[in-house]
C-alpha cells in the first residue's frame, strides 16, 4: 500500500536519517532527504523541510555531529555524520524494529491462516 506521508512517525524518520548517515557517510540536509526518497522508492515523500526537526533532535542527543562545509554547487552547507553513540543507538533501534517486525509478521500470518 502506498504509505501516506503523514503516517510516517517522526521517530521512524529519525531512524531513517541515522541509517542513511551510517551507510552513506557525511551528508548535508538535502542529500539526506534525497537519499531517503530514493531508497524508499519514493514511497516516502515528505516535505523535505521536516528532516531538520529530526536532525536537530539527533544532534541534541549527540547521535550525529555537524560541521560546516561547501556543497557541490559551491554553497555553504552543514554536513552531518553519525557518531559512535549514534551507531550504538542505531544498532539498538534496528534490533528493536526487527523484533517487532518479526512478531507482527507471525501475528499477521496467523490471521491469513485464518
Amino acid at each position, binding site marked *: 500500500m502506498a504509505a501516506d506521508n503523514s503516517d510516517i512517525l517522526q521517530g521512524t524518520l529519525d531512524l531513517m536519517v541515522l541509517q542513511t548517515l551510517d551507510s552513506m557517510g557525511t551528508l548535508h540536509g*538535502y542529500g539526506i532527504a*534525497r537519499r531517503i526518497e530514493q531508497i524508499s522508492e519514493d514511497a516516502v515523500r515528505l*516535505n523535505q*523541510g521536516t528532516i*531538520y526537526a529530526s536532525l536537530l533532535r539527533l544532534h541534541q*542527543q549527540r547521535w550525529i555531529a555537524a560541521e560546516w562545509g561547501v*556543497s557541490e554547487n559551491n554553497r*555553504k552547507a552543514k554536513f552531518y555524520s553519525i557518531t559512535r553513540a549514534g551507531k550504538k543507538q542505531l544498532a539498538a533501534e534496528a534490533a528493536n524494529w526487527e523484533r517487532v517486525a518479526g512478531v507482527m509478521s507471525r501475528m499477521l500470518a496467523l490471521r491469513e491462516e485464518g
Partner: protein
Amino acid sequence: MNRLSVFASRIAAVFSRRRLDQEFDQEVEAHLAMLAADNERRGMSPQDARDAARRSFGAVAQIKEEQRERRGVPQIDTLFQDLRYGFRNLLRTPTFTLIAILTLALGIGVNTTLFTTFNAIALKPLPVRDAGEVRRVERWFESGAQGDIQFAFSYPEYVYLRDHSRELTTLIAMSWPFRAFAALNQGDTEQLRGQLVSEEYFRDFGVAPVLGRTFLPEEHKTPGTNPSIVLSYPFWKRRFLADPRILGASLKLNGTTFNIVGVAPQEFTGTGEPPITPDFWAPLMMQAALVAGQNWMDQPAIQRLQILARPKPHGDIRTAEAETATLVQQIDQTLFVQTGFSPTGRVGVTSVRERTVAITLPHATYFGNTEDIRFRVFVLVLMLVVGMVLAIACANLANMLLARAASRQREIGVRLAMGAGRGRLIRQLLTESTLLALVGGAAGLLFSVWAGKLLWALIQHALQGPMGGGAPLTVSLDPDFRVFAYALAISLITGFAFGLAPALRASKLDLTSALKEEGVSFGARMSRSRLRSLLVGSQVAASMILLIAAGLLVRGLVRVPGVDPGFETHSTFWLFFDAGPDPAKGAALQRRVIERLETLPEVAHAAIAGTVPYAGTWTPPIKTLDPQAETLRTLGARVGAGYFETLGIPLERGRGFTPLEIQNATPVAVISANAARQLWPNQEPVGRRLKLDLNFRNQWKEFEVIGVARSVRSAHLSRVDPMMVYVPVDPNVPEHTVLRITGDPQNAQARVRAAMQSIDPGLMAGLALVSTADGPMQLEQVLAEAYTTFAAALAGLALLLASAGIYGVMSYLVSQRVRDIGVMMALGADAGRVLRSVLRQGLWPVLIGSAIGLAGGAAVSILLHSMLSFPGNADLLFGVNTLDPVTFLGLPCLFALIAFGASAIPVRRALKVDPMIALRYDG
C-alpha cells in the same frame, strides 16, 4: 544522560540565538537552492523550479519557527524578547519613563529607608558566632515595671543561673558601659567607656582578635587577679593610631594598672543594649578596681549585668524560659532571706519588694525590647504610612500606564488581530511595567542608602547632647542582603500592582474601533474612565489625609519654641551620681551632698526629687474620700522639702513639705491647681483628704492636702499636666538631686563638681550634671521636631505625587478630547465652555476624593485627641484644636488650587492649538 545533554544544548542555544538563527537560514537557503537546481535539471524554468522547491520543502517560515522553538528554551526566549521590546518601548517615551522611574524611586526609596533602619535596629544579628541563637535574658516584674531594668541582673543571680541551668548551655554576663578614667602618657587623663564581661565572652562569641589575644578563662577565676583588658578597634585606631606595639603595654585605669592583651577586630562592634562600642573590655573579676566603691560579686542589690545565653540545641525555648524563671525566683528568695535585699523595678531602690514573675528569652539584637509588641506596632504604623505613599505612587503610575496603553491602541489592536494571544500580550505589558519597577527600585535603593545615612546622622546629632549620650551609636545602615531582598520584593510587587490593571484593560480591546483608532469619542467608554477616576480619587483622598495629619502636627510644632513649661528650666540642674548599693548609706550620702552644696553661693536651692521632668511618668490611681467618687488617674511625683522653691513652681495656696514631714513620711500631699479644680471644684482644697493607690495593687493610702501648686508642664512639653499630685519622697532611699543655680552656669557647674570631688573623689566617675533645658527637655523637643518633620516631608511627597497624578490624568483627558475641542472651536464654541466641560469631567473625582480625605483627616485628628484622656500621654498635637479651622479649611483650599492649576495647564495648552490641527489630531 541524554536528557542532560539535550537540556544543556537547549540552554546553550538561548545564548547564541541570533547566530543559530542565521546559520539555519543559510542551511535552508542552501537546501532550497539545491532543490531548485534539481528541478531545473529536470527541465523546469528557473522561476518554476524555485516555486516547486519551496513547495516540496514545506512552509519555510513555519519550519524556521518550529526549529527555533525546539532548539532553545522558548519561555526564556520570549522573556528576553519581551524585555528587549519593553526596553525599546520605554526608551521611545523618555519623559514618561523618567517621571515613572523618579516616582518609583521616591516611593520605593522611602519604604526601603524605613526598612533599613528597622533592619539595623531589630533584625541585624550581633557580630558573633551563630548570632541567630543568642538570646538576651529578660525578666518581668510583678509591678509591671518596664524598660532597661528588665535586662538587669546581679552577679549572684548570674552565677546561680550559670551553674544550675540545664536548658541554657552558655551564659555570658556583660555589664552596661561604665566610665573609667585612664591615665595616658603625657600626664593627661581621659574618660573612657568600658564594659565588664565574663571570661568566656570573646571565646564563646567566636571573636578572633586582630592583635594579640582575648581573655583566657583560666586566668580570671578569682577576683582582682590578672588585670588585663582588650581594646576595641575604633579606640585602638583613634587613640593609639593602630600601633601594633600597644600589645603588652599597660594602661592605668582608675588608678589600677591594666595590661593590654589584645585588640578586637573591626567588625566586632559589641553586643548591644545600648548599641555602643566601648573603648575597652575588662574581665568581670576586675570589677572592684574599675567601678569604685562597689562590690558586685556578693551584692544582690546591684543589678548591673545583662545576661546573654545560648539555649541547648533542639530545646524548646519555652521550657528554657520557664526553667530560668524558676531559678531566678529561687535565688532571689535565698538572697532575700540571707541579706534582706531583692531585685527591684527601680534602679538602686529597694523600698518595694519585687518578684520576678516571668522570664522571656528574646533574640539578642543591638537594641533591647525590639520584640516588644509596642515597638512592633509603632514600626507597623510607620510602615503603613510609608506604604500609603508608595500606594499613591502606584496609583499614579497605573494612571500613566493606562493613558499610555490607550495611546498604543493601534499597535495592540494589530497584534491581537495577527493572532497574539491575550495572555502573551498581558505578559509583555507586565514585563514592561516590572522592568520599570525594577529600575525604579534600584534607583530607590540608592536613594535609601543616601537618605538613611542622612537620617541617621540627624538622629545621632540630635541625641548627642542630652542625658549623657556621647558615644556614637554603632548601628550600621549599610544595606545587607535583607535590604536588597526587601527592595527587590517591593519593586516586583509594585510593578505588578500598577501594571496589572492597565495590562488587563489594554488587552480587552474592541478590535474594530482600536484599529480604526477613533479614540475615546463622544460616547466615552465608561469602564476605563471609571477606573481612572477611582485611581485619582483615591490618590487625592490618601494625600489629603496625610496632608491634614501633617498640617496639624506642623501647626502644633510651631508652638513649641514659645511654650513656657511653667517652671525654671535653664537654671535648674539635675545632679546624677552613684550613691552606692546600700540605700540607707546612699540616702545619708545624698543628704550630705545637699547640705554641702547648699553652702555654695552659686547654689540657691537644692532638693531631692523622685522624678525628673520629661523623663517618664508615674500615674497612680486617685480618688476622693467620697464613697461614690470614681477612680481617676493622676500624674504623680515624689519630691522632697524645698522642691517647689528649687524648681520655681509657685504655691498658690498652702505650703510645701517640711524636712520633718519628709523624715517621718507623713501622709501629706501637694496637688496642682488643675487637680484641685477637678477634685473639689470651687471648694477649698487645703485640708481635704484624698486616696492614692501608690503601687497599683489596690492598696489605698490616705493623704491630706497641704498645698496647691500652679499647674505646669512637667510630664510632657506638649500639654499642661492635667492632674498632678506631689507626695513626700522616701527618706531612706537615695533619689535624684536638683539644684537651682544662680550666676554663671559654667562657673557654677565647676564649683559643684569641685564640691563633689571634695566629698568623695570616687563619685566623680559616675557624675553627671545637666540642666533641665539641655537635658530631658531638649530630648522631647528634638523628638517632636524630628517626627513632625518626617510627617511634613511625607505629606509634601504625597502632595507632589497626587498633583503629578492629576496633571497626568487631565493631560490625557484633554488629549482624548482634542478632536472634540477642535470641532467645538471650529463651530464657534466659546473657549470657556470647552474648558469648563473638560475640567468638570476631570475634577469630579478630585472633589469626591477631597471630601473623603477631609473626613479621614478629621477621624485621625479625633483619634489623636482621644489619646489625651490618659494623663500620662503626650499631646501629639500640642494643643491644636481637633477641627482646627486653619488646617481643615486652609489645606483643602491649597489642594484645590493645586488641582486646578494641574488641570488648567493641559487645557490651556490644548486651547491654544489651531482647530485645524486639532481636527486632524491622530492621538
